[in-house]
């Protein structure tokens, strides 16, 4: 980045930008395996409590973010049951850390990711999977060699939705891990803060533009990847 650029935003703002990218990236990447697993279970298996799982996955969408953040706080906070356990056994502390922001973003984005991947899985022809199994591939291998490559467009779509959502997530994050510059102050928290004071619009606008640029870059990349994948399948 040229110095003009760098100086267009203050150092605290740059920090927020870097943090947002880190948080969103890890939120997306780390929730992907579970997202794929849950999507697969919902799309292909019938089990007791399936609709309950489905409901839980959708919860973050239904609840106001503040409520989700509060629930996270009482569960994963230092004194929360899970938070205490994580701390005691693994030394993982989420509260007031960027990792907590990533968890909040991941949870908020989870329903979007799962739905996209699930739709893709439902579109895979089970006959192809059956063909793979006759060729000697066990269930996990069928998944890895046939299902997974075929749902790549869905995975890409789910990831970009999750990433975009994570870039924009604010309510749950600030409620869960508050707003500590350099630790948990992401772009949206910074924007929010600017909008709370009269005359803060200009600074907010700068950050809004940055957020849009980041998300657009991710979006373009995802479209490009999806197109390549689709082209390969179509033959070319």
């Amino acid at each position, binding site marked *: 980045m040229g110095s003009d650029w760098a100086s267009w935003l203050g150092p605290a703002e740059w920090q927020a930008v870097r943090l947002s990218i880190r948080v969103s990236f890890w939120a997306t990447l780390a929730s992907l395996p579970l997202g794929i697993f849950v999507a697969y279970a919902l799309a292909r298996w019938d089990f007791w409590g399936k609709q309950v799982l489905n409901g839980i996955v959708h919860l973050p969408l239904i609840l106001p973010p503040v409520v989700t953040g509060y629930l996270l706080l009482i569960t994963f906070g230092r004194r929360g049951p899970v938070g205490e356990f994580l701390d005691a056994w693994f030394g993982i502390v989420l509260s007031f850390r960027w990792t907590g922001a990533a968890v909040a973003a991941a949870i908020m984005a989870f329903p979007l990711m799962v739905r996209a991947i699930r739709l893709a899985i439902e579109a895979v022809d089970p006959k192809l999977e059956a063909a793979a199994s*006759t*060729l000697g591939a066990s269930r996990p291998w*069928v998944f890895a060699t046939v299902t997974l490559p*075929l749902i790549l467009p869905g995975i890409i779509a789910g990831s970009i939705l999750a990433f975009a959502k994570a870039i924009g997530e604010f309510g749950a994050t600030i409620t869960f891990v508050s707003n500590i510059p350099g630790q948990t102050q992401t772009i949206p928290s910074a924007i929010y803060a600017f909008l709370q004071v009269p005359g803060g619009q200009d600074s907010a606008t700068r950050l809004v533009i940055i957020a849009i640029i980041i998300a657009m870059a991710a979006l373009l990349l995802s479209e490009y990847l999806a197109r390549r994948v689709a082209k390969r*399948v179509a033959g070319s």
Partner: protein
Amino acid sequence: MSLRIKVQHGFAGFDLDVDIDLPHGVSVLFGPSGSGKTTLINAVAGLLRPDHGRIAVDDWVLLDTTGRRNLAPHRRRIGYIFQDARLFPHLTVRQNLAYGRWFAPRDARVESMDRTVDLLGIGHLLARRPGTLSGGEKQRVAIGRALLSGPRLILADEPLAALDEARKAEILPYFERLRDEVAVPILYVSHASAEVARLATTVVALREGRVIACGPPAQVLGDVGVVGARGAASLLTARVVAHHADGLTELATGAGTLWLPRIGDAAGATLQVRIMAQDVILSRDRPVGLSALNILHGTISDLRLGDGPGAMVTLAVDEDRLSARITRRSVEAMGLAKGQTCHAVIKTVAVAPDDIGTGRPSPPSHD
């Protein structure tokens, strides 16, 4: 006793009820559209769990609904050539072909990729993805994919239907080789009676989910009720005597010398030659001056008049039977009757390469 299939399964409006015991070799499933061929094969593959049934290859039980055994498809080591090719769209042709090999056990006998690709004529397609292949190209890749997985049992659902005659003629011997050299049992669906006659050790005729005939091809294919009069054929056992310079091969049968266009087998080999009943002309006296080289003789062992203008006359020649389909008018004009001796005229060129099966294993027993 090799492949034993006992399957009962009901769909709304369709019931499959089959109990057959197939010897090693190629068992051809034969029957009209919707008679349950694919359903049966799917049960063997493990893609359909029948309501009741037991499927075993020799002692190896794939399925037993009473014993609660149901081997997963990927443990059955089958090479299934699907009716609808089912290629993996995200893999290149080469990767499709190699797919099964990945999962084949180390000790599996796997065909050579290069040879198979050559045989199927798909060398120029290897780098392509299946999306834009033509119908026949897809089918050929599907054949290759199944054969290259080192299967212990091959299931082929109309593998050659989309192919032209020339290509068929190239690929058929390959299945023969698998049957004979590699000794993989093959369950093969086909509508083409030439294919049936050529490949089959056993023919299973299905109709509306039931087996209406099951046995060696000579028996089932001679059964007009199964194949229709136009499909009736006989199989003659013949021994290669010599190859002649003018491109003809001389064979000895119990009924006389048979001249055929040059065939590949060495002198001394024993073959089965399919002769379509409608290709045989009968004559009481030995005819002379005809362009047809083959004049066999035998005794009329059976004579059946059809409902239409046709009649089926069967000659006993040595151990074999030779059927001729002629008109009732000729039967009367020639005064044919059971027990008479008679000459059979067969054109050399009427016997196509398709019709000569090599080294067929010992005749199957019918259960």
